[in-house]
Structure formats: structure tokens, C-alpha cells
């Protein structure tokens, strides 16, 4: 954490905040895009997050917690975005594939990628969030709990539920014959 920059920004230094914003922008956008699954919404969430972070920064008690604090703001805005219009949760559209599929890379298969996308979109926002913080940001459950302000047990419970749901989405694709006729 750039503590000096955070301290300067807390005192009203806009240039210092601009450096922080530029350096954190990609990660914030990556998180928002993965949770919300839409570029426009992710852009809105990041922009709002930065403005609120600037406004509320003097109230951040510990500058060392800046990154986690901004991440929390972003997640809350993603929840708000999700609440604002739930229609987009029903839209199924796979994320673009950035690279060529390797011969043994299971998820690089378009069909499976689509299953992951469908399964992910069926998740509630709080379950999407823990998956993104765990598998994209790389946080441990205790760190996720701290970012979200929830107990670690809750985090683990959400992860468990989300993993189970995503596994079920893939298994439904792998075992269509078995899945057929079975109540979920």
C-alpha cells in the first residue's frame, strides 16, 4: 500500500488520489466486470467507487487498509448495480476468449466455458462476489471475510455453496444422460 499517497489523498491531495486511482483501476475493473458480467456496468461501478473513495477517504482509519477498503466499496456498488436491474442476471452471454485453447485446458473449451457462464449467472450476487475474490483476486477466506465485513464462517459457507452450484453446472453438461429427468 502506498501509505504516503493515501495519507496525502486523505488530506485532499487530488494528484495523489489520481495516482492511486490509476494504479488500482485495472484490478477494480477486473473485479467489477467479473461480478457484473457487463462492461458498461463494470465501468459505472469503478467510476462510482473512485468518487466515493475520494469523498470518504478522510474517514479511513488505517491507510494500510486502503486496498481492502476500496475493494469493499466496489463490492457494495456491484451489489447496488445488481439490485438496480436484475434483468441482466438472466442474460446469458459468454465472456470473450482471450487466448487459444490448450489441448488439455478444460475450461478453454467453449461449451464448458458457456456452462460456467450460465452457472455463474444463476448465482446470487453475494456468491459471485466470493468466487471472484477467491479465484480472481486470490484472497483467502479470512481475507474475503475482512473485505466484506462478514464472519469467516459465512465466507466459507458462501464459497461452499457457490462451488457446489458451479460444479453442478459443469456436471450437468458432462452427464446429460444422467442429469436428464433428475430433479435438481
Amino acid at each position, binding site marked *: 500500500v502506498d501509505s504516503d499517497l493515501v495519507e496525502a489523498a*486523505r488530506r485532499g491531495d487530488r494528484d495523489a*488520489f*489520481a495516482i492511486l*486511482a*490509476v494504479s488500482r*483501476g*485495472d484490478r*477494480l*475493473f477486473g473485479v467489477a466486470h*467479473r461480478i457484473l458480467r457487463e462492461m458498461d456496468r463494470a*465501468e459505472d461501478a*469503478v*467510476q462510482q467507487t*473512485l*468518487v*466515493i473513495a*475520494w*469523498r*470518504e*477517504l*478522510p*474517514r479511513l*482509519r488505517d491507510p494500510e*487498509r486502503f486496498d481492502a*477498503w476500496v475493494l*469493499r*466499496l466496489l463490492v457494495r456498488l456491484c451489489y*447496488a448495480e445488481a*439490485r*438496480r436491474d436484475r434483468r441482466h442476471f438472466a442474460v446469458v452471454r459468454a*465472456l*470473450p476468449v*482471450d487466448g487459444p485453447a490448450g489441448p488439455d*485446458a*478444460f*475450461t*478453454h473449451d467453449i461449451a*464448458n466455458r458457456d456452462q*460456467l457462464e450460465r452457472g455463474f449467472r444463476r448465482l446470487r450476487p453475494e456468491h459471485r462476489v466470493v*468466487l*471472484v475474490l*477467491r*479465484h*480472481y483476486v486470490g484472497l483467502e477466506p479470512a481475507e474475503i*471475510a*475482512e473485505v466484506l*465485513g*462478514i*464472519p*469467516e*464462517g*459465512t465466507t466459507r*459457507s458462501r464459497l461452499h*455453496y457457490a*462451488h457446489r452450484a*458451479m*460444479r453442478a453446472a*459443469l456436471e450437468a453438461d*458432462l*452427464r446429460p444422460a444422467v442429469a436428464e429427468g433428475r430433479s435438481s
Partner: protein
Amino acid sequence: MTREIDIERELDLWLGDGHSEVPDRVIAAALDQIKTTRQRRSFGLPRRFTTMRLTYQVLAVTAALLALGMLGALVAGASRPPAPPPITTPIPTAAGTLAPATVPPATLPPASAAVLSPSPSDAPTPSPINAAAWPSFTSQVFGFTMRYPTGWTLVPAKLADLSIPDAVDEFDAPAPSLAGFNVRSERLRPGQTPAQWSAAYVKANSMNPAECFPPSSQWTPERVDGIVGGLHGGAVSCDFTEVVVFDGNRVYLFRAVANRNTIGSDTFDISLLGALLNSVHLTPATAKDPNSEWRRTPAP
């Protein structure tokens, strides 16, 4: 043939792909916006106010408004020309017809109306909140009954939601208001005391501003169904006001938010919160809990 799925690896790969570069215009727009955005330096209310009991807060605000009203009347009386004749304003009656009512102009609304109105900027509402006329609600899951304002949308938690950690009974104010109120409850862990639960709860929320999650010893005493609980939050920076009450081996959390979509915008109307809480009846014996996992309860 069944293929074993390593779901964590699949998610690592899948979520690792995709867009990760924020367009420059997004950062530029944000930085442009903060040029005209002032940072918050101080809290809206002094600490001693936010830690008052709701009833004392209502009394304090009422007294302040009365004092302002008297001062205003004195000033206006000294400098204002004679009052114009009363204005006749049509007011809807219960029968649906319009009956004339006489409203003297340039009079201050009753102080109690200004406090009790959910929107103080609206026209004065001389009657207090009448919670007895509100619809009632019995939770299927969390062990309580209460009343909620007419016109609000109820989104109740269902038994099937018990597997979802964040399930709540939710009450949303009608548009354009974005105020909301939600309730949840959970069993304490075996042997866990309310003090231990509260300490763990505060610790789990340590990233909130200090004034939002102070130690439970600093929470403001507030009664719910005759049981003394603790109120915290309530400052603009918190975006919530919450009352925590323990009944037997169960903890109830009553949370009010002024705006469900933004952060730090406003505070929930305290008299409305008081009316909501006054209507609550706790029935912990009727609450449902998952058998296999303790939901939400912070570790002691």
C-alpha cells in the same frame, strides 16, 4: 464415463481470463468528477447524539425544533406585515371527496410532525406515525412478528433460504424512496455468550468506520419487545442503523438503511425506526435453523 471436476482449478482458469484493463476514460471521468467533490471531514451528528436512545433523540430534535420555531416566530412577528387571510385548501377525506380545510399560512408545522415525517421537507403531517394501522408480518424463518408501513414491499425469507447465509426478511420503502429495513436472527453457538457474539461481530466488521461498529459496551441501549438491546450505526458514514437484541440463545439484528443503492447518503428516519421496533414481538421458539451448519455466527 464420469470426469472428476476440480472446480477450484476451473474457476481459477475461467475467472483469470477476460477483460482486466479499465478504459482510460473511466478513470478520467472519475478524476474529473472529484474535482468538484468535497471530501467529508466531519460527521453529521456529534457522537453524543448518535449514542442517545431513540426516544431521547426524538425529544432532543423536538426541543431544538420548538426552540427554532419560537425564535422564528419572534423574529417574524417583529418584522412581518400583518398576516394575510387564511387559505382554503382541499383535503381528501376518507370517503374520497374533497372537503375544504382552513390552513393558516406562514405557520410553522408542529415540531412533532417535522420529526415524525419520513421526509421532513414534505408538507407538514400533523399526525404521528400510526403503526397500529400497518399490515402485520410473521416471519417464517427468523422467529418474530412485526408491523411495517403501508405501501412498503415485503420480501420475506423462506425456509429454502436457510442455506443462503445472507437471507433476511426485507421491507423496502416505495419509490422514489430507497429506504429499507431488514431483520434476521440466528442461534448462538453452544456456550457462546451474547458478549462473545457481539465482540466477534464487531471484530468481523473492523473495516467499517469506528463510529459504526464500536465495542458493544458503547452501543446505545434500546428496547425491543421489552428486551434491552444495543443500537449502533446511525451516522451518515455508516449507511445503516442497527439494533442487536438477544433473546435466550438467539440474536436478532434489525437493520435500517436510508438508501439501498448508495453509500453514506443519509440516515434512516429515527422515529420511523422507533415505530418499527415498537411493533416487534420476538418469538424465538418459532425460529428455524439449519441443522448442519451455523449460519453467520462469528466464531467466539
